[in-house]
């Protein structure tokens, strides 16, 4: 298709959309709403995954040691920890350090501190884990193996909390995929149906174009471009509206989330926004593609 052909296609596309302004407006509204729901799920998922990563960094296994542990036993244990494939680094916390930390944390509760005689806290090792081993089953296997070592009193890694968090992320991810697929299909149907309606109304137009020697591309491309423009415009509107909602809520969330131990929320990255726009364009093209096939068969001969 040459430059003149492209000019024809573009002017036909824009002309058709502008000639039915009302219809175009409502299609964009409907697709925007669907895409906003899709985007909201995406945003929730992105932030949940980010939180999981953040929580993951804090996932540590605390290995409490027996009080009667000799220095040689301790160094053997240290060697075992360092040779485990899951362990990234270790830190030894002596009984004294643990007590100092404890008194600092509960400095406001004098009664509690007064009730404690001596230093009941054990020495411990804090094991930081490599990223790939920060999941429930890995942690469970590691704690099972370490707890049987001589000199180990007890182990702790917040098992239930981590499992619950992972389950929530999985549920959100699956829900996101299901809802995303349904919304994707509905977007294709909305765009496809509305373009089909317009194609049926413009049947005579296609016939005229055919008789005056318009090529198949000239007849078909404006319909595909319409779909692409509708999908792209709706995706852009959905992103803009989501961004507005997000920034309105962001102030409130920034104040509260750190208290819940979660990082402040973030909006989509530029790459994801680009991907969102491309998805909108793609869904629009797909919707109009199913409509243009019969058109080109009947009229583009």
């Amino acid at each position, binding site marked *: 298709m040459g430059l003149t052909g492209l000019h024809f296609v573009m002017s036909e596309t824009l002309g058709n959309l502008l000639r039915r302004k009302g219809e175009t407006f409502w299609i964009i509204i409907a697709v925007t709403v669907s895409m906003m729901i899709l985007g909201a799920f995406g945003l929730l998922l992105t932030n949940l995954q980010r939180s999981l990563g953040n929580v993951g960094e804090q996932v540590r296994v605390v290995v409490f040691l027996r009080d009667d542990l000799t220095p040689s036993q301790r160094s053997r244990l240290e060697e075992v920890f360092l040779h485990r494939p899951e362990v990234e680094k270790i830190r030894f916390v002596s009984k004294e350090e643990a007590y100092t930390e404890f008194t600092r944390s509960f400095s406001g509760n004098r009664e509690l501190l007064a009730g404690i005689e001596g230093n009941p806290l054990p020495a411990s090792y804090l094991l930081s884990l490599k990223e790939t081993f920060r999941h429930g089953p890995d942690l469970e296997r590691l704690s099972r193996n370490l707890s049987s070592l001589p000199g180990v009193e007890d182990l702790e890694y917040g098992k239930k909390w981590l499992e619950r968090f992972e389950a929530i992320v999985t549920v959100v991810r699956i829900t996101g995929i299901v809802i995303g697929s349904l919304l994707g299909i509905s977007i294709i149907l909305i765009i496809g149906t509305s373009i089909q309606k317009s194609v049926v109304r413009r049947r*005579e137009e296609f016939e005229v174009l055919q008789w*005056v020697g318009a090529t198949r591309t000239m007849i078909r491309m404006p319909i595909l471009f319409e779909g692409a423009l509708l999908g792209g415009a709706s995706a852009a509107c959905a992103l803009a509206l989501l961004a507005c909602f997000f920034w309105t809520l962001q102030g409130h969330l920034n104040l509260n989330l750190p208290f819940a131990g979660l990082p402040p929320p973030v909006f989509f990255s530029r790459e994801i926004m680009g991907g969102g726009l491309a998805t909108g364009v793609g869904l629009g093209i797909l919707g109009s593609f199913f409509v243009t096939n019969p058109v080109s068969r009947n009229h583009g*001969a």
Partner: protein
Amino acid sequence: MIFFGTSTVPFVLYSSMRNKVAKEDFLLPDPHENDNFFPTLEVKRALLRQKLNSPEIVQMFGVSKSYGPNFAALKEISMGIDRGDFVFLTGPSGSGKTTLLRLLIAAEQPTKGQIIVNGRNISRLQSSSMPDYRRQLGIVFQQGKFLARRTVFDNVAVTLRARGVPNRVIKKKTWETLQWIGLEDKKDAYPLHLSEGERQKVTVARAVIDSPLILVADEPTGNLDENFAAEIYKLFEELNRKGTTILFATHSRTLADRSGKRTIVLRQGQVVES
């Protein structure tokens, strides 16, 4: 040397001719579409003659068109139309006029036989060549088709827009054509707001704006009162004087007889007078 020179001339002529003949002119037959496809020597000669600007612009060789096994709309039609001719195609309703025109504009393929138009075998035209072929034609139907949501100006200009003509030329030519048909004051009106006769004038303007080689008109005055019919006929005559070949289908034998032009009469799918 002389021998070499004289033998080269026909060879060069033949090669240049070969290049002009499109591949599709000699494609192998599709038994489902046309059971007598192989171009005969006669057809090959006609193709080459037309490419050399022979007098004939349309030639039909044993053309038949059937719809199902029991209905033959056209039976073994062979005829020719010369360049610049004004030919009436008449016959009662159902005689095959519209079918014949539809074959000529390549809306359908003949069941049998071949049609050569301006050096092109259109019985086997590939879909990719269809637009190029139709750019040589002007097509007018009894029931005009329009771009409903566009003005008269846009309806006429669409022919040039679809053919990639620059905007400046489109504006000039469309304006001239509207003046020619006497609708310049209605250029911003929509087809729905025009009378039947004015609408038909718009379709004529759209068909002739790019000076077609052949104007194919199927009952163009069928729905019009006498005055508009006469106006349309006058426009056609004027166009014909400028060199456009016109094939005018009408069931009115009187109009054809009064014009004194060549008349092809069809009856039950066969040419009974030519």
